[in-house]
């Protein structure tokens, strides 16, 4: 296979995953959330149990008027949704689906890359918050930036723990080094990573920046139509990215009960969807954290736990070596 063809195939694969997986997760959220609340959820669009609801939503968003507030900083306002979306697309590029280079772009320090680009998302929050010329947007954006900056620390620390355990920063390398007993050993790191990841994508119960009962819709208040859809899409891609990262770092990625070599992609996808289900489940079950509780959880619980896990990992590594 020539190089360019391989490149095209990889890019097309990543873009397809980028477009399909969030829709699947979104639809799952519709249905799971509905059934957890004793409802049915969407039932009409597409016929069978409303499977095409999100496509219908997309069509609706395209048709809506694209409003830019008069006082807004137009260029920044319009650029923000794209900036929110692109980091997750880049992150999907390096997450391995299966063994033998079944990944968009194998990268030697993929973990670093993912954490770096996911961290860029906070710029989009600040851009949209400030450019909207709306006090609710600004408040939401400041809350969001504070939250994202704070939770980035436990996220990176927990990821560092598993990278230290595996002795590599490459995501496929981490999966290869993973052993089932890591589930026990790295459990605190996994919890910290998962919770911090939830906060990074601003999912409930960490949706203080978009707390709709007090801030209208936070930094997304002024957005309509396609741009708003971009923010929503970014949220769902964020779910996929966080679930995939948790899978790859802590749940063994493509390692399954049998047939890793040719069924690896299936195990990865199953795990990703299981973690996504848990993310949705948490959203339905828990109320939103208040702003001070949010920061306290980050600095007084997650960071110390992550640091302790780091010490433990270093100790075990030294003991083994």
């Amino acid at each position, binding site marked *: 296979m020539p190089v360019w063809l391989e490149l095209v195939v990889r890019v097309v694969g990543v873009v397809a995953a980028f477009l399909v997986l969030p829709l699947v997760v979104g639809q799952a959220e519709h249905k799971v959330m509905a059934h957890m609340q004793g409802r049915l959820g969407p039932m009409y669009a597409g016929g069978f149990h409303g499977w095409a609801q999100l496509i219908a939503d997309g069509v609706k968003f395209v048709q809506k008027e694209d409003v830019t507030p008069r*006082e*807004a*900083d137009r260029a*920044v306002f319009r650029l923000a949704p794209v900036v929110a979306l692109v980091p997750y697309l880049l992150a999907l590029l390096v997450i391995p689906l299966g063994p033998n280079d079944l990944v968009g772009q194998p990268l*030697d*320090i993929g973990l*670093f*890359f993912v*954490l*770096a*680009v996911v*961290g*860029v998302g*906070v*710029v989009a929050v*600040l*851009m949209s*918050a*400030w*450019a909207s*010329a709306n006090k609710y947007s*600004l408040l939401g*954006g*400041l809350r969001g*930036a*504070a939250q*994202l*900056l704070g939770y*980035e620390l436990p996220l*990176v620390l927990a990821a560092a723990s598993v990278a230290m355990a595996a002795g590599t*920063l490459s995501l496929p390398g981490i999966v290869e080094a993973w052993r089932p007993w890591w589930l026990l050993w790295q459990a605190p790191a996994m919890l910290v990573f998962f919770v911090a990841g939830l906060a990074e994508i601003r999912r409930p119960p960490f949706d203080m920046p978009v707390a709709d009962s007090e801030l209208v819709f936070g930094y997304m208040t002024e957005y309509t139509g396609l741009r708003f859809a971009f923010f929503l899409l970014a949220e769902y891609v964020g779910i996929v990215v966080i679930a995939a990262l948790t899978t790859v770092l802590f749940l063994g990625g493509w390692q399954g009960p049998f047939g890793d070599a040719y069924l690896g992609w299936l195990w990865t996808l199953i795990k990703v969807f299981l973690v996504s289900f848990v993310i949705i489940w948490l959203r339905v079950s828990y109320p939103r954290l208040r702003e001070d509780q949010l920061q306290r959880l980050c600095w007084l619980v997650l960071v110390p736990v992550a640091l302790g896990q780091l010490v433990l990992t270093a100790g075990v590594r030294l003991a083994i070596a």
Partner: protein
Amino acid sequence: MTTADVLMLALGAVAVGAGALVVTTRHLVRAGLYLVVSLGAVAGIFLVLTAELVAWVQLLIYVGAVVVLLLFAVMLTRAPIGAADDLDRPGWPATLVGGGTGLGLAVLLVDAYRWSTVELPEPGTAERLGTEIFGSWVLPFEVLSVLLLSALVGAIAVSVRIPGRRR
């Protein structure tokens, strides 16, 4: 001119252009966003120079944290949307000194390197860079961690407001 040269020229143009906008724009927040572009372009140059880890660290720390802190500060100090007129002081000395410094350095470096070429080094893996840091430079590394800690404590000490006590 190789591909690397073309890439670096383009990224360098972006970096310098965005940097010029940072120091000349009259929109406070946009200055921060231009800074993001400039730093991102510099990270791109790092990538071309095969300093992969440094590039991602640049992205993680600078774009993800430093610029966000700057934007945060801009918004907390009541930045207006749109142009502000009182951002600059009269510019002749600054132009002279800044331009002199930049152009002088550029002339110096151009004179030193001319149009010579070097081979790009092997892509630096994180492992070798780690060996370097924790081998030859472990003492500065430790000193830096102390510096970071003291900066953290200092920042908290400066910005904390003790209830009941007027500052």
